[in-house]
């Protein structure tokens, strides 16, 4: 257990020292997961909202499938993306394997179902309140979607933060498609796994603490930002 106290002091040293190696890894983590989250939100929020609003045969099945996809294992996502991007895969020509772009794609695939499934529930709750009124006003489902996403933005924030958490914390997918190459595709979680393999649990934990601290900063920033915007509105 003295690794734990050692981990905290190492984490502190890392945070204070901000050495360039750490900054590089942290920067890539945020870039990759941030981009994946952006894309997943752009795709997942409308999908979730659409599943809440449109009525069609098989909607129930689609919702069940989406909920099940929240249990997509990162390693499986990694393998799928790996096969698609590999030399023998259909997108080989893009030469994306072992680049940060491949990691973005993998995390995007991983978290889009999560963002979509959670936002479906949020939007469905709002829709049950708004449905008759919006239909009465002549809003087609297509016109209702942006309204619902906008009016539900506070609740959807938690959804998006859940997606970010999943992306920034996962290692199974990015290590397969990124390869954990030093200075190229090494991110916080792959570095943590590496130190764990090496048996340097204190350093691994310290990196974990740094990652959590970062998540905390980002969440706090988002929270302050939302409050500030609300106050203005």
């Amino acid at each position, binding site marked *: 257990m003295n690794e734990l106290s050692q981990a905290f002091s190492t984490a502190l040293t890392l945070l204070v020292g901000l050495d360039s190696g750490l900054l590089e890894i942290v920067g890539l983590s945020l870039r990759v997961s941030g981009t994946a989250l952006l894309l997943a939100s752009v795709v997942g929020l409308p999908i979730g909202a659409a599943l809440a609003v449109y009525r069609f045969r098989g909607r129930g099945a689609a919702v069940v499938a989406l909920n099940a996809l929240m249990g997509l294992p990162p390693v499986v996502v990694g393998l799928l993306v790996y096969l698609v991007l590999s030399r023998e895969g259909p997108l080989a020509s893009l030469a994306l394997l072992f680049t940060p772009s491949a990691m973005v794609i993998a995390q995007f695939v991983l978290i889009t179902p999560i963002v979509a499934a959670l936002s479906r529930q949020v939007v469905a709750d709002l829709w049950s309140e708004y449905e008759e009124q919006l*239909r*009465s*006003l002549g809003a087609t489902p297509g016109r209702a979607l942006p*309204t619902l996403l906008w009016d539900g933005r506070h609740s959807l924030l938690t959804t998006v933060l859940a997606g970010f958490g999943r992306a920034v914390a996962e290692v199974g997918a990015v290590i397969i498609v990124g390869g954990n190459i030093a200075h190229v595709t090494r991110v916080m979680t792959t570095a943590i796994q590496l130190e764990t393999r090496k048996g340097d649990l204190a350093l691994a934990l310290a990196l974990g603490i740094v990652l959590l601290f970062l998540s905390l900063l980002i969440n706090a920033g988002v929270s302050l930002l939302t409050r500030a915007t609300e106050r203005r509105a």
Partner: protein
Amino acid sequence: MTAGASILPLVARGLVYQVGGDRLLGPIDFELEGSGRTIVLGPNGAGKSLLLRLAHGLLAPSSGTLEWRTSDAAELRRRQAMVFDRAVLLRRSARANVEYALALHGSRGAERRARAAHVLERTGLARIGDRAARALSAGEQQRLALARAWALRPEVLFLDEPTASLDPAAARRVEELIVEIGSSGTAIVMTTHDLALARRIGDEVLFLHLGLLKERAPAADFFAAPGTPEAQAFQRGELTW
């Protein structure tokens, strides 16, 4: 008030609405012919709100038919509006609620702003147009819902107890407004529990009881000589649970 051929008449035949095994409304037959003010009366739970929602196309009949002159769904939507008994206001300012509805109907820019300002002014909300709609008082919310529906210049306007939460003066002003809207070519279909109001402004009365259309008559006749014992008891305030 609206261009093109009218969407009226609305003809209901054997209209029934049920949930699970319970028949909540019908079978009902009626026609809504043209402009004018139709008042739907009846005790609590008679099915007035259900009837309005069915007519407005928000609920699908369990059996029977409801037919407008046109079957163009988008057109039907565009030419009707409804004020619910319980206003559902969007999470934005009172003005933005009106402008949102106008935007859905294709109104843009200065025209939209002017129309919103006008309807807010006429419903006494101009001063508080920038307040969050959901923070308004009960009466203010009810007026906002009316303003929003009226802003759309519907050909048929369904009003579900539009004066229930209004103070005496507001109720008078809204009554005048409803009469004015009706006179400018909009068909009004309105429920109310205010029999004096119904008597003053109603052209025709539909009287519902326990889900059935018990009586349909010109308002003057209905109030002068109700044709059913239920309607008589209702008017005396004695048709009780």
